[in-house]
């Protein structure tokens, strides 16, 4: 089973998230107050690495480990789901100080109250699934 590789990549990511302090509620507060460059530097330079990767995949038609071409799908058109969902997510992010990856990393780092945040996020996702048909997308 190739699952071990994802466990290892995840462990690498969790380690980096804590070392970068992007899991810290204080750092998120600082970011939304424009008081420091740290978070912008982290997200910006991560984006640069990601963008070079995607550019190379498109430009050279790069393939994955199994030799299959990597396809980059275009997201569905429209703006409502991105705008409405994005704003709600942003409010949640600034309240908890953690997006989904950091919630998991914080639980690992021993901040047990984030299991409650995790459960609330599960409930939020479940609620979205239940009322999805009635929401604008």
């Amino acid at each position, binding site marked *: 089973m190739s699952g071990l590789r994802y466990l290892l990549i995840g462990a690498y990511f969790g380690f980096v998230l804590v070392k970068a302090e992007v899991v810290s509620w204080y750092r998120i507060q600082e970011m939304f107050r424009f008081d420091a460059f740290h978070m912008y530097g982290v997200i*910006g330079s991560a984006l640069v690495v990601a963008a070079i990767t*995607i550019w190379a995949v498109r430009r050279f038609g790069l393939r994955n480990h199994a030799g299959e071409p990597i396809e980059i799908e275009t997201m569905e058109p429209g703006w409502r789901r*991105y705008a409405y969902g994005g704003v709600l997510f942003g*409010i949640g992010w600034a309240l908890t100080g953690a997006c989904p990856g950091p919630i998991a990393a914080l639980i690992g780092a021993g901040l047990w*109250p984030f299991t409650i945040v995790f459960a609330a996020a599960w409930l939020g996702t479940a609620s979205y699934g239940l009322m999805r048909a009635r929401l604008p997308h």
Partner: protein
Amino acid sequence: MSEFVELLRSPWPWYLAGPAIGAMVPLLLFTGGRRFGISSSFRHLCAATGVRADYFRYDWRREGGWNLLLVAGIVLGGALAGMLLTDPNPVAIAEATRADLTAAGLTLDDRLAPREIFSLAGLLTPAGFVAMIIGGFLVGFGARWAGGCTSGHAITGLAELQRGSLIAVAGFFAGGLVTTYAIWPWLFS
């Protein structure tokens, strides 16, 4: 040796941390053809726990097993960095933020999140309840509505030049600013 441990314990500057996070995109694309994104794990978790909605009716093991393992790995990595190689110093945030939060009456402690808000006792206060329960709910709800979170939209989606991701990231920021300048001052007052 102690200097090496010291280095492992200390936080990383943005120019090391950012590219290390961005490396998740090639790591997942080239080793498994997977697109970097974390919040779908909550959808797979809902499917695995049997939430009854069409949205959760699919083979979650096949489509989302890798994503759930990734999240399990994040917990382990967080434990390694946060419990074994703990940074003994408090997070060095900007003086302006520190002054602002202190003036609002918050006790800044040496953890990654203030204990006053993120604890069982905090859950019984308005700020703690809103931050943990409402905040967590909105993270889960908003990420699925928008079709991604910070990783899927702000990193992968923007790198792919997706129009939807640009709208979503603008939304993340708008929501964050509303919270910082309207909701938090109200909660702290």
